[in-house]
């Protein structure tokens, strides 16, 4: 947010751990927070599965997940509720990690996949497919599915932003501004499509545009799950090269990091993760922006911690979905709740930073 968070990190030197070629700093507090977050995520995950028209107790949910439950529970949990909860988990992790990556690369807490055009592009493509019925649009939807088409749209827009922002290298500030302008174009196209469309299609498109976990099927979740796992593996492998980059490009180069390469790979991963998240749940707002900031504060880290950001993202998304389904008078898409939490949170960060 501002200089104060960086200052806090200038603490006594933390002990290091070395395993062969790999070495990392041992931060007990970070590990502790991450484990607690993982436990909380698992709890909310099970709770989300248990709550519904046919309520199931927490112990039975856990038993069923690990294969020891009754037949009735198994059907309700594994076939009906699991895809939704799992979608929330996967999308939350993907968005959280994606946000942590983009914020670290751009060195700006404002940077998030929402701003880099990914959500805007995915939104424009899917609204186009929803509202323009018949012809090629219908053929595309039936051939590859709405999610995959949205994925392609988000990815294409993300890459467009990247190439437009490329000018002898990538500068974080330029990336954000180009992202804002490309997003605005995509939104203008979306708006126009909505104006010309049939009102029934508009309601469908609008619900998709807010981000929702309704009616997820196993096939959609499986694709998102595998894509996310592969991407996380890539991020994990490259992340060791990434740490020194927080010290600035020159220092990183001095420490033997090919920073342009590492940054390009991680930014691509961030774009892909966000696109996967958006294709599975629609452009859920603010998770990618808020999760890294929360994780950073909880873990008392100078930069967004990757694993903890993913956990906060999942916790936030599943929790918001639970609230959206149960606590409100009308059932709303999850995106409404995350935005309702995220907006004031941003303002809180701001006021707190200013009052210091």
């Amino acid at each position: 947010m501002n200089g104060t968070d960086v200052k806090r990190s200038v603490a006594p030197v933390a002990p290091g751990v070395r395993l062969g070629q790999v070495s990392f700093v041992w931060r007990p507090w970070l590990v502790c927070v991450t484990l607690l977050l993982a436990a909380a995520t698992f709890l909310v995950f099970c709770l989300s599965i248990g709550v519904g028209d046919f309520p199931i107790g927490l112990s039975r949910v856990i038993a069923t997940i690990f294969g020891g439950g009754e037949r009735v529970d198994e059907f309700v949990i594994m076939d009906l509720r699991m895809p939704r909860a799992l979608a929330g988990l996967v999308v939350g992790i993907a968005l959280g990690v994606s946000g942590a990556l983009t914020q670290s690369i751009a060195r700006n807490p404002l940077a998030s996949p929402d701003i880099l055009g990914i959500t805007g592009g995915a939104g424009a493509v899917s609204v186009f497919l929803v509202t323009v019925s018949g012809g090629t649009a219908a053929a595309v939807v039936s051939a590859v599915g709405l999610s995959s088409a949205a994925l392609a749209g988000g990815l294409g827009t993300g890459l467009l932003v990247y190439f437009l922002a490329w000018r002898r290298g990538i500068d974080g500030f330029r990336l954000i501004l180009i992202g804002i302008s490309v997003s605005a174009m995509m939104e203008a196209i979306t708006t126009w499509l909505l104006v010309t469309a049939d009102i029934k299609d508009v309601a469908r498109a609008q619900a998709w545009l807010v981000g929702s976990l309704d009616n997820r099927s196993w096939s959609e979740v499986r694709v998102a799950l595998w894509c996310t796992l592969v991407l996380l593996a890539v991020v994990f492998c490259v992340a060791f090269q990434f740490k020194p980059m927080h010290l600035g490009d020159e220092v990183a180069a001095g420490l033997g990091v090919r920073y342009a390469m590492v940054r390009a790979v991680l930014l691509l991963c961030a774009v892909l993760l966000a696109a996967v998240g958006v294709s599975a749940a629609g452009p859920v707002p603010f998770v990618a922006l808020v999760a890294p900031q929360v994780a950073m504060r909880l873990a008392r880290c100078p930069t967004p911690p990757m694993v903890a950001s993913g956990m906060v993202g999942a916790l936030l998304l599943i929790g918001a979905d639970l609230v959206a389904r149960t606590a409100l008078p009308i059932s709303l898409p999850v995106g409404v709740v995350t935005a309702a939490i995220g907006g004031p949170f941003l303002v809180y960060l701001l006021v707190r930073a200013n009052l210091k």
Partner: protein
Amino acid sequence: MGTTAMERPLIRGTTKARRRRVVGLGTLVAVLVIAAAVSLAVGARALSPAEVWHGLFAAPDSDQRLTEIRLIVRTVRMPRTVLAIVAGIALGVGGALIQGYTRNPIADTGLLGVNSGASFAVVSVIAVFGFADPFQYVWFAFLGAAGSGVVVFGLASIGRGAGNPLTLALAGQGITVFLAAMTTAVALSDQASLNALRFWNAGSVAGVGFDVIWPVALFIAVGLVLAVTTLPALNLLNLGDDVARGLGVNIALSRTIGIAAITLLAGAATAACGPIAFLGLMVAHVARYLTGPDYRWLVPYAGLLGAVVLLLCDIVGRLVVRPGELDAGVVVALLGAPFFAALVWLGKFKGA
């Protein structure tokens, strides 16, 4: 907030430069008049200059065809042309002022949360009262726009971060996202609201009558007067708060007036047309390129440019997707976004 005799030549520049600026202003007015004439003539049914003239000034007579032309010109083309000019001036001046007061080259009136506040108000009153006529909800749109603008500015001026460009951008984004979520929540539970929202969101100068335009124009006129009174102080504020204070500027007062002016201008324009993004941002940059940093020249240029650009976008929107129409707000965004990207690419915003 007068300047001393010694500073005056520094700010005003040479006589030659001043003459050039006056000529430029005259040229802009001429372009605006031509654009307005084209706007009256172009549309689903193209009219000749003579027909437009007749439609505007002739007394009613019995000729069927001429009566029809009179009707088109006076009730359809005339209001939308006037609205495009009025709203364009408001958004242009508002955009220049907000960039001046925040010292932020990417500031836009939409950034204040004005657009989202207006959208939320419109959707809410439609859902609650079932309003259908713009004349009924334009007031609520204005209240919503002004309310969220004030909240964003208030949040951005708490504590030490006041005046920091990023603070305002963040406060604006936080409020915008929150209100957008609330707007969606209402719209998804009420189909009439959803239907109104999608048209409102596009940003259009069509379909509003003079009964809406005159009151809106009144608010904008007040905003313009406030804007004019604050221009000399704004010039000094851009030298930095300390310098401005040393030169005798009452910083708090001049900020308050400026914010009031921006809120009135952006709020009224948004209430009448719906959210139109990028216009203020775009014309403020062109105006700065044309006039240099003196706000007493920059602001009138930005206002006239705003009117010209909004009019031209509306005309283009009428021509490109015939027989349909592209809303002016959509055209502005499709044109403004690449413009913005080009500015970024040329490295105009390095220090923001």
